[in-house]
């Protein structure tokens, strides 16, 4: 490649360009350089454009217009008043008038109507009688710029429907549990699941990863057994060999596809260790037949997944501590562990924490292993212990995206924004924590 002459001119004639030719030659080469530079810049802009398109695509779906059609008009039900203005007995009366006896019996069995508060009754009325149904969903772009077209079509197809602006991402969406109706569906269960998973994964992977990193950086060449005896030499050699295997192994593990970790989790944590991970061994079985597909199984799987990354980033942080600090400490008579605990770790902590949080925030966005481990796609009960069934935000997004209806796509987009906000705040925490620890360090 580099042996090739720079210009075809000198190649064909076998002589160097002279006089006017030189200027021409240089000018054309300069021009070619500029052209290529422009194409490089163009590629960078393509990258930025993709990012913008991605963001716009999500916003476009998460906000927009909906056409709502109600099975029964509120005014017809209440005689022209708003539901919120009615007193509790009036609401009960409406329910008793409009619902079939079987449905009423079911409701009363859950909690007698007379004992419910107004808020709850309004919810029931909305759900059982008024049944607001989204007959059409429009993206933000259509809602803003194709308004007339939309309204014309609506008037034709659904004359009773009303077009309104809808932000699918709203407070209700965050705090509502899962529902099969996209209007009422929320991400509370999934968000709680994600937070449980986040905390558990940190608790499991941080100590293990840090321990391994300390060993690989500080004790790598240490000899535990007596070098003068053949047995000691043998064991030292074994440990040394295994340590070098561990380090190459960690690099290889970091390249294993995440779905493979899911299969490992399925076979080991969900199936083989079912007695422990379902909680039945500890007598914690709540009668919810989670059969091993629990939060703790997911957290263990995720921990194995992030462990290589946590170890590698912690190793980098430990490596960055100047060795003079270690030598000074050892020279003053501190033991190895005292040196690590009091000198090395405090200095490496900002880097270790940042690396760990970044690794785990990556894991929080992972979906594939959790699908395999068996996250539930539809549960309405909040996770209460590490042995609960669970779902997480990415699973919800996957589930909603794979459905054909526009409304589900809209709430998938809203869930994506929720997830991205969560991830961004995690990353921001990592950066703030690092800055805080750096500023506090005396050095």
């Amino acid at each position: 490649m580099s042996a090739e002459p720079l210009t075809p001119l000198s190649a064909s004639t076998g002589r160097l360009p002279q006089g006017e030719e030189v200027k021409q030659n240089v000018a054309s080469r300069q021009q070619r350089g500029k052209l290529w530079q422009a194409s490089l810049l163009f590629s960078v802009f393509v990258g930025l454009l993709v990012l913008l398109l991605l963001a716009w695509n999500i916003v476009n779906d998460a906000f927009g217009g909906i056409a709502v059609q109600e099975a029964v008009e509120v005014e017809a039900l209440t005689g022209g008043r708003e539901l919120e203005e009615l007193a509790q007995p009036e609401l009960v009366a409406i329910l008793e008038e409009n619902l079939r006896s079987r449905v009423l019996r079911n409701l009363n069995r859950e909690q007698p109507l007379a004992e419910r508060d107004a808020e709850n009754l309004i919810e029931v009325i909305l759900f059982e009688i008024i049944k607001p149904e989204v007959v059409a969903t429009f993206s933000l772009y259509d809602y803003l710029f194709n308004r007339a077209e939309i309204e014309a079509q609506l008037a034709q197809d659904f004359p009773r429907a009303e077009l309104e602006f809808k932000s699918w991402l709203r407070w209700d969406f965050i705090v509502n549990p899962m529902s099969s109706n996209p209007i009422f569906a929320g991400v509370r269960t999934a968000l709680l699941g994600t937070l449980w998973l986040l905390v558990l994964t940190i608790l499991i992977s941080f100590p293990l990863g840090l321990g391994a990193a300390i060993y690989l950086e500080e004790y790598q060449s240490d000899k535990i057994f007596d070098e003068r005896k053949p047995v000691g030499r043998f064991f030292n050699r074994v440990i040394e060999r295994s340590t070098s295997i561990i380090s190459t192994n960690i690099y290889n593990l970091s390249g294993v596809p995440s779905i493979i970790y899911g299969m490992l989790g399925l076979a080991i944590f969900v199936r083989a260790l079912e007695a422990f991970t379902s909680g039945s061994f500890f007598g914690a079985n709540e009668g919810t037949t989670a059969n091993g597909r629990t939060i703790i199984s997911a957290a263990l799987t995720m921990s194995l997944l992030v462990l290589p990354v946590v170890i590698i980033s912690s190793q980098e942080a430990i490596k960055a501590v100047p060795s003079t600090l270690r030598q000074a400490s050892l020279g003053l008579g501190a033991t190895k562990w005292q040196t690590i605990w009091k000198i090395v770790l405090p200095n490496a902590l900002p880097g270790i924490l940042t690396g760990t949080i970044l690794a785990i925030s990556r894991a929080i966005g992972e979906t594939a292993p959790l699908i395999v481990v068996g996250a539930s796609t539809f549960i309405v009960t909040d996770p209460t212990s590490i042995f609960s069934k669970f779902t997480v935000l990415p699973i919800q997004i996957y589930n909603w995206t794979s459905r054909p209806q526009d409304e589900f796509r809209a709430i998938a987009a809203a869930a994506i924004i929720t997830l991205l906000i969560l991830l961004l705040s995690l990353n921001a925490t990592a950066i703030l924590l690092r800055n805080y620890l750096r500023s506090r360090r005396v050095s």
Partner: protein
Amino acid sequence: MADQLRVNSDPRAALAGDAVKQVDLRKRPRIGETIIQTILYACGFISIFTTIGIVYVLGQESLRFFASDEVSLVEFFTNTVWQPVIGEFGILPLVNSTMMVTIIALMVAIPLGLAMAIYMAEYASERVRAFLKPVIELLAGIPTVVYGFFALTFVTPWLREIFGRDVVQIYNVMSAGLVVGILITPIIATLSEDALSAVPSGLRQASLGLGATKWETAIRVVVPAAFSGIVAASIVAMSRAIGETMVVALAAGASPQFTFNPFLPAETMTGHIARISGGDLSYQTIDYNSIFAIGLVLFFMTLTLNIVSRMIVRRFREVYE
């Protein structure tokens, strides 16, 4: 004993003929320190257990799969039909679509990522770099399921607009491949940029001093010098594309098909594993065992690529003093 030295604590005392004090200079064993070291070693050993676990689990379930009457090893690697319902287990359609997604992805990611890397390493000013680096990291940090959403709700409709609705199916390999390409671009960009930046500036200065233009320097001096790093980056990205699950699960379709047409739906290995295990899978069925056999093939493909990439870096790296 050699290291049990006889040390005179005080020369005068020795002269006076007092008893010579014996000092043991050997490192005294400290139980606490040894215990800590053992615990730390155990932490490190977990990674070995993970690998053994992966190989054992995949191997054992695959053995059960091949031991069953319905499938033979030869059929597994040569049959072009994967239809568990009628007992056809040929992995070729799954591997084929995985490779199609990967090749499309690399055709997007290598030019794009490399161009970004060259721009950042050779042309960009400090301020532009300070802006671009976080943007690329942002692209790399977006969860893959979000890219899947993007593929299904943006790229696919866009492809169908361009090529026509009868040509491009709702689920198709092209859309998945393009988006996986975007997903692995940051990997190629950052790793190649590292390799390009590691080329000593003396080489650049020499080339510029000989009258080469900036572009000629970049493409004929710096890129060849960093070539092993760039190849390694591409291989890492390739292994990532092969293992990528969510984009293909959402956008590439749910029917294993042996086709070379990128506009048709075709399920990949990862997509199939995700779909089969997504339902309530009962153990001891051929379906359950079959995903482990696919997983084993997937594991070896990515492992080989990772090892090759490390070998390339080690063997072909140009070292400049």
